[in-house]
């Protein structure tokens, strides 16, 4: 028991605590507590006014009960009463109670603030300290409103005691944290900076913390603190251990103050003044030198304090990022720590090196330690240390060591904790993409990733691999082959099925030549996984099937059979059912050309920032990432386009221009009610899905297309009114059209590209019967035989 026995040792409290400790069960404890609460309640409500000692005792008991974890809903009033007592211990308990059980009752707050004000105004330092502690502990807005103006005054007043100055400084810091707007900058700021020169190191310590926080709010006000801080720091660092007396901690000179000064300096860029900068560099070099000296004491406290200053100094060096010699020295020092006996130091070294790796001066130096880090990854027993090692590998990765690092991270992933897997997956994906010279490696890496940690592979990752495969022609065949082989594994992850389904659907034709991966084999392989997958995957597979029908007519019948089965057509899930129905219908009624257009190969995706990077940056709040969302939206749009495009916008060349455009064609407002904004390049936005097209494509009895015309030209007119329809060395045919509601007008321009005149040029318009009734005005040439332009116009 304490040697200093206090006359106020509350016996009742000690007895109560013993009782609680002796309770054999939770119920007994609760019973005892309730008994006591009832007792206290009756005492508080009782007629007899309680004396200070009893009040203190009961309030203390209430506090104890609260700290045990039970709710207390009374006693605040009594605690506030204790505040105004003259007895120090009573005040103390009162303040403790209200700091721990913060109450938002406005009357109570008023009373508390009154009590605090009285104590602040009293010239008694002990009482002032108590009240300042209370404000710092509670730091509520009401207190800030009441006292934020007074405390700076107390802080800089000449007659304030040192202990009070300390408390005032940190109290102000707390208020600034919770209500920064209520702490006004004033003329006191200059005086606060001056506190750095104070004789009393406790005051300097508190003032440094305060200035560090305030400097982040308004750096200009506290610029002058930099020179003072450097001066103070160099005095400490070069001092003999007896100089600082009690502020020396296990032979380290004022470690807390040194660390705080170094933190303060990190709020500002390196000083411009050459002399000042030189002094700071000297300081830092001294600190680095001391680390190399043999230790003055075997105690871990000594090494911890010394290294604390060292790590903070290194943090400052990294922050300034301006002195290459210091950076390299810091890197070497950290390198030594990487293999230190103590786990704590290895952990911190790995962490610090991460920041060092991003500096251009020291990046190379950091890379030299790669073997040590990889070794740490494999052998460290503490998972947090391994995690730091992974972070460091990620930071130090560049083109020269990318393959090695990714391989190491993959092998680590196989045994990693579940909690950290997702982050490692994202990191591997980012690295693989960033440093891939040969994209087959990238595809392999991602597929490996899915194999090893399929569950943690989020959508962004496999969207990205598909985007890249589609954008790069050279890797498409390889991707198809690899995915096909990977799918043959007996148990493959659903994400692999998704990726495989998509890639085979797009590029299965590239490997269809080989009999081992013939279309039927591919289909059977995909379908074998079908029933094991969730709904979104199945939806994706259905899309792949219709793509197969397009690519491989020979398996059409088989696939149609599958689509026709009840499990698809009557599937409980709406999406699957709709897809099955539509794809089946599409496969039966669309001609091969139309099907080919509808299921044309996916165009390259527009380049945009990797959504994986964005996700990695936002690890704490996984929400819908714009990149992925956009990609998903784009996919939705394209699917809709595929479904709704019924090929009615086919144009034929020659004189049959007028035939294609029907009055059923939608108006010129092409950005129809799909609602989604157009993306750059890439996808075409078409509102073709308007009601008037329900009749299906008009049975156009069209002349077989001239092979010179590419499909592209025709399909362009889905969303454009004007353009070149056909072009060769002799002739250019342009089309111009305009539409208003149910009326449309088409002009066809024939341009002579030669320098000779056309003779006997004529054009005809073939109108199939269906259209004839709709044509209001037969086509007529606007001009004849001029070498440049002939126009036909037709209106209907």
């Amino acid at each position, binding site marked *: *028991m*304490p040697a*200093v026995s*206090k*006359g*106020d040792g509350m016996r009742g409290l*000690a007895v109560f*605590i013993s009782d609680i*400790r002796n309770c054999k069960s939770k119920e007994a404890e609760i019973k005892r507590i309730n008994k006591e609460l009832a007792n206290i309640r009756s005492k508080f409500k009782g007629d007899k006014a309680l004396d200070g000692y009893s009040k203190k005792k009961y309030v203390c008991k209430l506090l*104890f009960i609260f*700290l045990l*974890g039970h709710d207390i809903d009374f006693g605040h009033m009594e605690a506030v009463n204790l505040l105004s007592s*003259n*007895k*120090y211990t009573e005040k103390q308990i009162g303040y*403790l109670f209200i700091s721990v059980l*913060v109450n938002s009752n406005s009357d109570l707050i008023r009373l508390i603030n009154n009590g605090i004000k009285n104590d602040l105004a*009293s*010239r*008694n*330092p*002990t*009482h002032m300290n108590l009240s300042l502690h209370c404000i*710092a502990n509670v*730091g*509520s807005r009401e207190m800030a409103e009441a006292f934020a103006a007074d405390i700076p005054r107390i802080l800089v007043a000449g007659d304030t005691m040192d*202990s009070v100055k300390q*408390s005032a400084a*940190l109290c102000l*810091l*707390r208020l600034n944290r919770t209500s920064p707007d209520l702490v006004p900058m004033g003329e006191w700021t200059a005086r606060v900076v001056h506190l750095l020169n104070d004789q009393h*190191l*406790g005051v300097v*310590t508190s003032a440094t*913390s305060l200035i560090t926080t305030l400097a982040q709010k308004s750096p200009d006000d506290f610029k002058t603190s930099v020179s003072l801080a450097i001066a103070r720091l160099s005095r400490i660092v070069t001092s003999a251990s007896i100089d600082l*007396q*009690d*502020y020396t*901690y296990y032979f380290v000179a*004022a*470690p*807390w*103050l040194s*660390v705080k000064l170094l*933190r303060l300096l990190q709020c500002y860029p390196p000083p411009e003044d050459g002399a000042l900068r030189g002094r700071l560099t000297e300081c830092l070099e001294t600190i680095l030198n001391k680390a190399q000296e043999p230790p003055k004491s075997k105690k871990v*406290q000594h090494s*911890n*304090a010394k290294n*604390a200053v060292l*790590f*903070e100094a290194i943090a400052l060096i990294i922050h300034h990022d301006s002195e290459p010699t210091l950076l390299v020295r810091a890197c070497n020092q950290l390198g030594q720590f990487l293999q230190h006996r103590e*786990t*704590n130091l290895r*952990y*911190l070294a790995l962490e610090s090196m991460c920041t060092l790796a991003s500096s251009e001066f020291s990046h190379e130096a950091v890379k030299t330690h790669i073997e040590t880090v990889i070794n740490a990854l494999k052998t460290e*027993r*503490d998972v*947090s240390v391994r*995690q730091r090692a992974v972070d460091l590998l990620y930071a130090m990765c560049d083109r020269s060591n990318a393959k090695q690092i990714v391989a190491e991270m993959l092998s680590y992933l196989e045994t990693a904790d579940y909690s950290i897997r997702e982050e490692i997956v994202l990191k591997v994906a980012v690295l693989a993409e960033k440093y891939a010279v040969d994209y087959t490696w990238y595809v392999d890496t991602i597929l490996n990733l899915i194999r090893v940690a399929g569950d943690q592979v989020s959508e962004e990752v496999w969207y990205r691999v598909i985007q890249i495969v589609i954008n790069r022609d050279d890797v498409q065949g390889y991707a198809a082959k690899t995915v096909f082989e990977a799918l043959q594994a007996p148990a493959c992850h659903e994400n692999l099925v998704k990726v495989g389904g998509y890639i085979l659907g797009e590029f299965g034709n590239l490997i269809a030549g080989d009999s081992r991966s013939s279309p039927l084999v591919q289909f059977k392989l995909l379908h074998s996984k079908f029933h094991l997958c969730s709904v979104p995957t199945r939806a994706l597979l259905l899309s792949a099937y219709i793509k197969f029908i397009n690519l491989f007519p020979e398996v059409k019948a088989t696939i149609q059979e599958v689509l026709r089965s009840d499990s698809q057509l009557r599937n409980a899930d709406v999406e699957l059912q709709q897809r099955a129905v539509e794809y089946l219908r599409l496969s039966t009624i669309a001609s091969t050309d139309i099907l080919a257009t509808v299921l044309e190969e996916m165009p390259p995706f527009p380049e945009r920032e990797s959504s994986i990077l964005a996700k990695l940056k936002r690890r*704490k709040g996984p929400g819908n990432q714009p990149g992925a969302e956009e990609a998903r939206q784009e996919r939705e749009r394209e699917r809709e386009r595929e479904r709704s495009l019924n090929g009615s916008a086919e144009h034929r060349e020659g004189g049959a221009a007028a035939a294609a455009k029907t009055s059923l064609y939608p108006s010129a407002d092409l950005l129809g009610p799909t609602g989604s904004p157009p993306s750059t390049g890439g996808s075409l936005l078409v509102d073709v899905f308007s009601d008037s097209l329900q009749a299906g494509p008009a049975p156009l009895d069209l002349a077989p297309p001239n092979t010179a015309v590419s499909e592209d030209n025709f399909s362009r007119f889905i969303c454009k009114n004007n353009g070149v329809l056909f072009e060769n060395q002799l002739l250019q045919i342009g089309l111009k059209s305009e539409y208003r509601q149910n009326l449309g007008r088409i002009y066809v321009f024939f341009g002579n590209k030669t320098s000779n005149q056309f003779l006997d040029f004529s054009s005809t318009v073939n109108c199939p019967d269906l259209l004839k009734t709709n044509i209001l005005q037969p086509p007529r040439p606007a001009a004849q035989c001029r070498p440049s332009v002939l126009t036909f116009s037709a209106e209907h």
Partner: protein
Amino acid sequence: MRFMLLFSRQGKLRLQKWYVPLGDQEKRRLGRELVQTILGRKAKMCSFLEWRDLKVVYKRYASLYFCCAIEEQDNELITLEVIHRYVELLDKYFGSVCELDIIFNFEKAYFILDEFLLGGEAQETSKKSVLKAIEQADQLQENIDFQMRLFPGVLVPNMASESSGLFQN
């Protein structure tokens, strides 16, 4: 510093000091989860861990775990020494402190902590100064009690005049 917790090996909280405003439920939940996380760690593991978005520094002294949650930019090693300094202060004050002292004199533990750390930052790093401040506060109480015992019924003298000389540095 965001908060400091002291708890036994069975997970009973002996002291909790919060430097951030949080609701009571929130505090209890955080405390429980952190206690479980730390108790689950093995002996030789590193004293630092990342938990939620905080860094946690902890050390075990006999049957008590001292655990501090600090912010991203705070220095871990110096926090370890903050813990050690606090233990030293308790030790000096109680004389060979043990968990029981902290249980039965919990309010003293809070007072000592307040003299050393305020608003989450160290305010006075000289051990002597902190202990002196606490002793003088206790002395203040003794004087009053002594006077009360000797002269019951006499009004307690005005504190201001008595204490103006006590805290000269």
